[in-house]
């Protein structure tokens, strides 16, 4: 197990290093750049060129890369030019990371807590009204555009009913104490329970919006996987042996159906980061996705590099954990 883990971690390190290089080159090959965003439409051509020189953006790509690597080695990931000029990209990551973790976690928990049992039930009761409702509901979940769903949810629950806020992470006058940056957790730690409640209220609509696609995917994969397993010989054998239905479900059906489901959940966690860009933007939820959208619009190289790399690291680490969980679920994987 240790060798397996070490091998995968080394593979990941190589993946991240290659990705960092490709990302560096890709960003600089995009049209426009930070000088354009900093200058705006009032800048003269000469000022734009002077700015390019000041920021070293007129140097060759290898020279810029060397300078970048040198700074990264010293722990300097650069300073923002567009998201929040003058603030280090790593600080922006730290400020925004908790919001996205809270949102993604809430969304994946919703997706799994609803998707797995409903998928399982749907498979067990194949062809019934419950199955049909589940299948149609999951199709809608995948098909409805995120921005439309967000608009609709906000219209109903914020504008019309007034039950939930439509934007932000916390009310502007909540004045809560920051400890970890996780708004839902900090209130519990400091005893400011109203702050936690407020943060949870702000989390509901974005989390539901973000959860729709992973829910639909998890639901459908669970349903399909369970249907496959239910048809397996060993399940019939277990039934013929007279094993308890509960034992068959938990040991033979669910456990065997879980492999593709866990893979899907792992992939969905990665996809959540991509989904968060739109969800966070339309809910003004100040996480990595919102920062990424601004950084891209403003061609903020430093912030883009840090955020995209961080997202990539999260993605590959989650996939590593998924691989490790395979090894736990299916011991044959360890020996391959």
């Amino acid at each position, binding site marked *: 197990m240790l060798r397996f883990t070490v091998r995968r971690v080394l593979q990941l390190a190589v993946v991240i290093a290659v990705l960092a290089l490709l990302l560096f080159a890709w960003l600089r090959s*995009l*049209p*426009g*750049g*930070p000088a*354009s*965003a900093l*200058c*705006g*439409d*009032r*800048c*003269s*051509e000469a*000022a*734009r060129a*002077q*700015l390019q020189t*000041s*920021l*070293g953006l007129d140097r060759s790509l290898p020279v810029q890369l060397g300078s970048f690597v040198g700074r990264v080695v010293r722990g*300097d990931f*650069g*300073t*923002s*030019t567009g998201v*929040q*000029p*003058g*603030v280090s990209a790593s600080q922006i990551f730290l400020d925004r990371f*908790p*919001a996205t973790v809270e949102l993604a976690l809430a969304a994946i928990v919703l997706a799994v807590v609803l998707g797995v049992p409903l998928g399982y039930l749907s498979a067990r009761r194949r062809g019934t009204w419950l199955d049909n409702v589940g299948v149609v509901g999951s199709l809608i979940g995948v098909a409805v555009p995120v921005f439309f769903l967000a*608009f609709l949810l*906000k219209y109903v629950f*914020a*504008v019309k009913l*007034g039950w939930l806020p*439509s*934007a*932000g992470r916390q009310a*502007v*006058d909540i*004045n*809560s*104490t920051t*400890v970890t*940056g996780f708004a839902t957790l900090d209130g519990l*730690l*400091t005893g*400011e329970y109203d702050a936690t409640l407020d943060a949870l209220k702000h989390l509901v609509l974005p989390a539901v919006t973000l959860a729709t696609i992973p829910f639909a995917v998890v639901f459908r994969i669970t349903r399909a996987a369970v249907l496959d397993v239910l048809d397996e010989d060993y399940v019939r054998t277990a039934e013929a042996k007279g094993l308890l239905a509960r034992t068959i479900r938990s040991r033979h059906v669910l456990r065997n159906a879980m492999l593709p489901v866990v893979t899907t959940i792992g992939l969905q966690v990665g996809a959540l980061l991509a989904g968060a860009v739109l969800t966070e933007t339309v809910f*003004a939820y*100040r996480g990595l996705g*919102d920062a990424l*959208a*601004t950084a891209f*619009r*403003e*061609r903020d*190289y*430093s912030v883009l590099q840090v955020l995209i790399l961080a997202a990539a690291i999260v993605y590959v680490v989650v996939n590593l954990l998924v691989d490790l969980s395979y090894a736990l679920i299916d011991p044959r994987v360890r020996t391959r």
Partner: protein
Amino acid sequence: MTRPTTRRLAAAGLAALATVSLAACASSDRSASGGTSSSAAGATGGTMVFGAAGAPKLFDPFYATDGETFRVSRQIFEGLVSFTPGTADVAPGLAKTYDSSPDGLTWTFGLQDGVTFSDGTPFDAAAVCKNFTRMYSQKGAAASEAVSQYWADNFGGFADGAAPSLYKSCDATKASTAVVTLTRVTSKFPAVLGLPSFSMQSPTAMEKYDANTVTANGDSFTYSPYALQHPTGTGPFTFDSFDQANGVITLKRNESYWGDKAKLDSLVFQVIADESARKQALQSGQIDGYDLPSPADWDQLKQAGYDLQVRPAFNVLYLGITQSNNPALADIRVRQALAYAIDRKGLVDQQLPQGAEVAKEFYPSTVAGYSNDVMAYDFDPAKAKALLAEAGASNLTLNFYWPTEVSRPYMPKPSDIFNYMQANLQAVGITVNAVSEPWNGGYLDDVDAKKADLFLLGWTGDYNTPDNFIGTFFGSTSNRFTTGVSSWGQTLADDLKAADSEPDVSTRKADYEALNKSLMADYLPAVPISHSPPAIVVASNITGLVPSPLTDEKFASVSKG
């Protein structure tokens, strides 16, 4: 069976221990005045939450160029002059009087009495001169035209003498009298001093927090603690905090303000980048107002009882022409054909918000020197075709650039404007190669690199002088329109400079009227299209907001009822 149970217990124990440890370290830092309710409906005006499209880039307005930074700065800082609310006209500010010498080179400012910066530093002539010295003495990265852009645009060079500067000196002749000397006469004085960039800032705070330190670091700049956390002015509000994680900027009423104190206890700007999200936040009562509602929403918002106020249009949208890029465009008959080909009235009626007007020339009629007697280019496709034929350009092909991912007050929806114009141009036989690029993703770069034959751009006035419009556009020969390649480019630049430097107001007005006639009849370096009024919307319980053509809204007069 025991091992998993033990593991689970151990994991739960560790989690509980971690939580308890964190909780032990954490304690509430809430101030007595915090919380959700105490300040929300205070007897003296409560808290107004304004939805901002973006966070201020920084809080030192001298280095700023963007509207969101200026909006916040306008509440914290004041200039020597201000603008009469609701207009672009100059009015007294921190200087109660301002007079120029007969030669127009020396300006004497009589300062308001009893003014202090919010940190207690007295506002006097010495503070004024320290501000001017600070602005003029920028060095290194800070002296880059892009970092100190408004100074470079309006005053020119710095103390290093690398480029000529409009500014010469400042003398504190008395505690209440500051004398600013210029190197040449300009029409922009003193109006330019009403811009947020040239606001008066506390010399004490600037020194304490190292305000002048701007350094190029890798491919970005780093700014001083002053610019990020300690802006200190004389205005009706003071900076309280910027919660970056939540995108919330909080200003508090300046209790020691020298004039009429702000009615609101506090003013909060909440960053909501998406326009539709700002609208829903207003509708759900989460914010009390926002800027630049989409023209498509105006009627709906008004009908729903919101106070939607349309600003007077103080901008211009033009069709830019790069003469150097295409030989045909150097012929005025071709440029005139473009003007005749575009149905500007139809475009204004169908694609721009209510209240928009066709632009007869390059600035709105409220600016001095506007002439009603300029050459008009009423929609006339037949004449356009005839002019193209006369110029031998009947089979003209033009690369028409237009921007995506942007909305400007003068250009709410670039795609609609482009599509309309494209159809007009094609109708007179011009082949249009459409090139769309993101605003910051190549569009501005390519326009400045002269890759476009035609392009869409515009300008919102900073203050009420013709020079701020046509001087900016054509006052030098190296501009976006490449007027330098024309035989008249230098003449136009010289005439604009001469008009700007004319000390006599009525002569200057006549000069600009003549220039506007020439620009439209003889030069036509671009085609002025429209002036569009941008709107601002607040909830029905918000009173006292005066919309400004310069977007110079001051929230001190606002109350929340």
